[in-house]
């Protein structure tokens, strides 16, 4: 009986099918796309913005933007690659928008405290980096962008990207030496 029920169950839709349905305005298909990808997008947004509240806002903005731009996706590249590029741009845009006004009034210290016990070791110390150094480090070291690509995304010179990466690296090493990170504590 159980076997029969299993046979009767519809097979889960593949990602291209979900994309096609979402393009036509199917919100349930879009929700499934969200469920598949939102943790990856959130991780990217959190590391770029450095604040939980801003990362949540940026993640929401990413998916709203994805809903708007999805009809433009023609499958010429991988959907994950396309979504990744869209998310990076949206996260940077959200950060810029936020910085221009709210950052004058709101400190990120609260968020730093709240994430200290919540996230993995690297993410704890990443939040202690200066904004620009953190973004360059995340894009280059974690997301695999070249310095030229980082420079283009951030509107800076490639040399500046390299310098910021070097700075971030030194600061992170200093934080590790100070014993602020328990290496492998969570993973081993």
């Amino acid at each position, binding site marked *: 009986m159980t076997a029969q029920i299993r046979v009767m169950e519809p097979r889960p839709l593949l990602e291209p099918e979900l994309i096609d349905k979402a393009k036509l305005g199917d*919100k349930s298909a879009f929700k499934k796309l*969200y469920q598949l990808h939102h943790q*990856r997008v*959130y991780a990217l947004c*959190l590391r770029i913005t450095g604040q939980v509240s801003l*990362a949540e806002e940026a*993640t*929401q903005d990413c998916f709203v933007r994805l809903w708007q731009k999805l009809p433009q996706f023609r499958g010429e590249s991988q959907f994950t690659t396309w979504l990744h590029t869209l998310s990076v741009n949206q996260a940077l845009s959200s950060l810029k928008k936020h910085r221009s006004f709210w950052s004058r009034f709101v400190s990120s210290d609260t968020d730093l405290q709240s994430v200290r016990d919540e996230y993995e070791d690297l993410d704890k110390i990443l939040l202690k980096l200066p904004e620009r150094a953190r973004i360059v480090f995340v894009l280059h070291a974690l997301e695999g962008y070249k310095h030229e690509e980082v420079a283009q995304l951030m509107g800076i010179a490639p040399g500046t990207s390299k310098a910021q990466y070097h700075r971030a*690296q030194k600061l992170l*090493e200093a934080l590790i030496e100070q014993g602020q990170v328990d290496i492998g504590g969570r993973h081993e």
Partner: protein
Amino acid sequence: MNDASAKLTQLINQAPREIAPQKELWNDIERQLDKVELDQPQNKAQQRPVFRRLAVASIILLVGLLGMNIWQHNGELSTLATPSPLLATLAEIKLQHQLQVEQLSQQQHLTNWQASELGLPLENGIEQLRKAAEQIYQALQQTPNDKELWQLWLWTQQREIELLQQGQTLPVNPLPQGV
């Protein structure tokens, strides 16, 4: 590679690709999607008044331009219909020029350079200038505001006077008294 650098490399390699948000974000996203859908027809509706305003502004502009054009034509017609001060000046200058020519002609009776072979080219030139001046004068009566025509007309008159004065200086024998 020092210890801290090695540890950092290890942390990068161990960094999770995915992080779960602390709160559920889908509900807010869904609300925003609904808002996006609602906004789209509104945007279209908002475009209509903009289009209407643009159309009204275009019509006003068109009417204005047409009105200005008609007004200018009327101005030109009224200029032609009523004797303008320019036409009076034109007639006065012509009269003065004729008087000056007459005075010079009286002197011609003393020299009679026209009768000599040397004076023939001058005489032809003067004749051509007079014909041209008359044609320009008639054109000026139609369009008295044309500055270039004015300059050309005054030049023909000036040149005629100069040629007449040149004729006076030609080496010809003066007429005997009483002829």
